[in-house]
């Protein structure tokens, strides 16, 4: 499709994308080199803000903590995720189908919600802690230590590794493994000598991804790191305002640039790894019906370990929230049966801002998700079957928002909505949050769309051209109808992602722009535990509905 008639909309889409992606990032960069907020009349260029944060020991502690947590996460999540993928794709582990679905839950539940769940379940006076105290006389854990944060973050990121390694294992032809069996390798040797080396590129990619996610971590350390004062880069940035008492945007921007300086190379590294991962594809064998590996009695041990992991990452935090949402208060010496109540939910629905948060969250997921998918589709189609400059630029443009953590993107969009004429009017509407969400999740959404577009054989479009359809007709009559299911599936996934998102809305939170995610951060800061519990449960419910619909329609929950 290289017709000139079609190039005008393509350039328009590309330009709009460039503006939406670059404006916030450039604003952050510019702000970081000023000595005061950019809207101050008195300000000048310089490295003052960098000098300030580099002299602040808290910054270096936070940086170190981020590195430690990110490394710890990779070390924990990588072997467990790879092992889980092997168990679920290659062996006769019981209940595979159910586990495959449950594994995805931590991916779609907001980290803020999970973190809160661990506090109410396993914090010093959490449900499980007090039950443990009754049993052992003491609480044998401390969820607020740096190690605990790394362990919890690591265990809740096992699904990310699982997704990539199971995809690699599934696309690995069974014949190469069978060939090893035939020449005399036992199942363990097959796994070590053939499956593992051949999925190594995917594992490496997952390791970088998890490290990258660890560096961006916000909700978990915000909630769990607070009591003992453990800061990571994102929470350091978030707390800078408290530190100086005034909005120190220039300092925040400098921290943001430091974070991006680490994450952007990681994004480029991921991209490169993904390309090299395709190296083996050309000689990949043929997938045939596979005999699953019988684990014998070991399967019960493996099953037990998987169950323990599921219990820790799903059952414990979510049951904690569910319980906390229905009690007036909780602490030592309180009997559960005496404090059961629906008051927390009544409280939520009595407050107009929280009702708005629920409604806005629903709107941004459904309507907003649909419009976002339409935008992603426009960007995807602009680059579809194109090899020119536009496609290449788009290709790199979408990587940028991926490197900017949601918290920072939200901050940059706040500035834009505060001071850009034409946008100012939208500041107090949910549209501002929607724009930020859409840009932050651009890379993810686009991957869904291109995934659907790649399913279409080029001949289908080419044959439409040869029978006389102009490119716009091909789009309308062939391409779009063929990716219809892909678009619907993307909508569902984007719905769940938008329900789950919290950090992007934090700085945009104001009257009219409430969403559950940012509301949770704000209520948590104010210590309104009852309402956090109720809203968290509502949030989990919304995600669960999305998940149930997705499963009902057989949507693939990952690429």
């Amino acid at each position: 499709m290289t017709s000139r008639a079609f190039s005008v909309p393509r350039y328009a889409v590309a330009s709009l994308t460039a503006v939406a992606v670059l404006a916030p990032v450039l604003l952050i960069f510019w702000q970081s080199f000023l000595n005061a907020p950019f809207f101050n009349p008195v300000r000048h260029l310089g490295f003052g803000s960098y000098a300030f944060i580099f002299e602040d020991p808290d910054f270096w502690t936070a940086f170190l903590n981020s590195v430690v947590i990110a490394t710890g996460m990779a070390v924990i999540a990588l072997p467990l995720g790879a092992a889980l993928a092997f168990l679920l794709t290659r062996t006769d582990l019981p209940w595979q189908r159910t586990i495959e679905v449950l594994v995805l839950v931590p991916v779609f539940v907001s980290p803020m919600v999970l973190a809160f769940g661990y506090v109410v379940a396993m914090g010093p006076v959490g449900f499980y802690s007090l039950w443990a105290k009754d049993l052992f006389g003491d609480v044998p854990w401390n969820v607020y230590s740096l190690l605990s944060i790394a362990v919890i973050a690591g265990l809740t990121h096992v699904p990310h590794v699982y997704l990539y390694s199971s995809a690699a294992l599934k696309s690995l032809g069974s014949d190469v493994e069978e060939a090893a069996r035939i020449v005399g390798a036992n199942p363990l040797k097959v796994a070590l000598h053939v499956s593992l080396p051949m999925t190594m590129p995917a594992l490496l990619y997952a390791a970088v991804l998890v490290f990258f996610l660890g560096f961006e971590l916000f909700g978990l350390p915000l909630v769990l790191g607070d009591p003992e004062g453990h800061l990571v880069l994102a929470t350091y940035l978030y707390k800078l305002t408290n530190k100086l008492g005034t909005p120190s945007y220039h300092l925040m921007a400098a921290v943001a640039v430091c974070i991006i300086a680490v994450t952007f190379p990681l994004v480029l590294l991921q991209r490169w790894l993904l390309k090299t991962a395709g190296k083996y594809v050309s000689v990949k064998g043929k997938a045939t019906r596979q005999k699953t590996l019988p684990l014998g009695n070991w399967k019960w041990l493996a099953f037990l370990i998987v169950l323990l992991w599921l219990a820790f990452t799903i059952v414990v935090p979510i049951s904690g929230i569910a319980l906390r949402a229905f009690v007036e208060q909780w602490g030592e010496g309180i009997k559960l049966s005496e404090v059961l109540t629906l008051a927390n939910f009544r409280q939520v629905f009595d407050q107009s801002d929280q009702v708005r948060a629920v409604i806005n969250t629903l709107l941004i997921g459904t309507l907003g998700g649909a419009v976002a998918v339409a935008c992603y589709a426009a960007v995807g189609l602009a680059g579809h079957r194109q090899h020119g400059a536009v496609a290449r630029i788009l290709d790199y443009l979408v990587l940028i928002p991926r490197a900017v953590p949601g918290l920072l993107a939200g901050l940059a969009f706040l500035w834009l909505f505060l001071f850009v004429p034409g946008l100012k009017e939208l500041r107090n509407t949910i549209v501002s949050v929607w724009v930020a969400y859409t840009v932050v999740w651009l890379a993810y959404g686009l991957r869904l769309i291109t995934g659907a577009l790649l399913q279409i054989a080029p001949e289908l479009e080419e044959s439409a051209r040869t029978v006389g359809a102009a490119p716009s007709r091909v789009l309308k009559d062939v391409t779009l109808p063929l990716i219809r299911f892909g678009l619907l599936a993307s909508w569902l996934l984007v719905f769940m992602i938008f329900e789950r998102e919290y950090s992007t809305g934090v700085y945009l939170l104001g009257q009219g722009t409430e969403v559950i995610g940012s509301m949770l951060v704000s209520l948590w800061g104010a210590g309104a535990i009852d309402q956090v519990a109720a809203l968290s449960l509502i949030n989990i419910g919304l995600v669960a509905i999305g998940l149930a619909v997705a499963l009902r329609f057989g949507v693939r929950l990952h690429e």
Partner: protein
Amino acid sequence: MSKTGNSLVVTDLHLQYGDNQILKGVSMTLAPGEVVALLGASGSGKTTLLRSVAGLEEPSRGRIAIGDAVLFDSAAGIDIPAEKRNLGLVFQSYALWPHKTVFDNVAYGLRLRNVPASEVGARVTQALGNLGLGALAQRLPHQLSGGQQQRVAIARALVYNPPVVLMDEPLSNLDAKLREEARAWLRELIVRLGLSALVVTHDQTEAMAMSDKILLLNYGQIEQQGTPEDMYNRPQSQFTAEFMGSNNHLPGTIAEVAQDRALLAGDGFRLWGTSRGKVAVGDKAMGIIRLERMRIAQGPGENRIPAELITAMFMGDRSEHLFKLGALRLRGYGTDARAGVDGYLELPANDLWVFAASS
């Protein structure tokens, strides 16, 4: 590879996926130094049978043994895992390990058998030399052509001297032109090294060219087995007749029976043929004759029918003529490119097989 080894014996093998019966009681024998082809259409169970021997499928019933060594026996509860069967298998896709060099691909089986490093080197070099791959030892699989990859896959399966080599459609991944050369080369290799081989193929020409014995499978059962000549010239069923060559079909009714001959009457013809199986006067029947056995004749005569020439197709070494007889279309070979004229076709009674129509 040992000529003194024992026979591979498969007895009454059954296999099913759920309710789907794939193998319905297959028995076969492969003597040392023999090449047996498993022939059949897709879904006939030929690959499943091969994979069952290899230990990659789990039959529900039956027995597989090589000499005294029982590989599988449902009654005795024996199912030796694939890696302990010591067989060689050449995969249809070759299944070379992309992260190992050619040398390491071939050496892997020896290393698993704890062969000392110096001997591994010598044996791999010899195996690669046998297959004309000496210079490619340090290449990675994706740097090889399809034909070279196939040879590496064969070297990998032979290097530890398995008693039987299993080959799953060994030629199907090669280009048509290359396939004919590879067929001759593979047959030469098998003869030169005295291999016992079980070869799966869907191509009857390939099966006839490469093997000493053919097993024709049809929906999980053996339709017929025998030497290539037997299978081609003396099919016991219409299925075998159809599968083994290119045929003309003449549907009709039996008008007369005399010993092993039957008179087949159809739309515009009455021809004597050789009855295969039981036929009786009045039965619906199908006459089948190989394309190359039908002759173009100049005038009327015994077992000749008049036919109108529709077109002739030049094939290089011969011409193929298409004739019309009522609604029937008959194909025959001639040497003269376009010279076929309306005339007569002779269908010798010995070559026209008459099968009772299966109802």
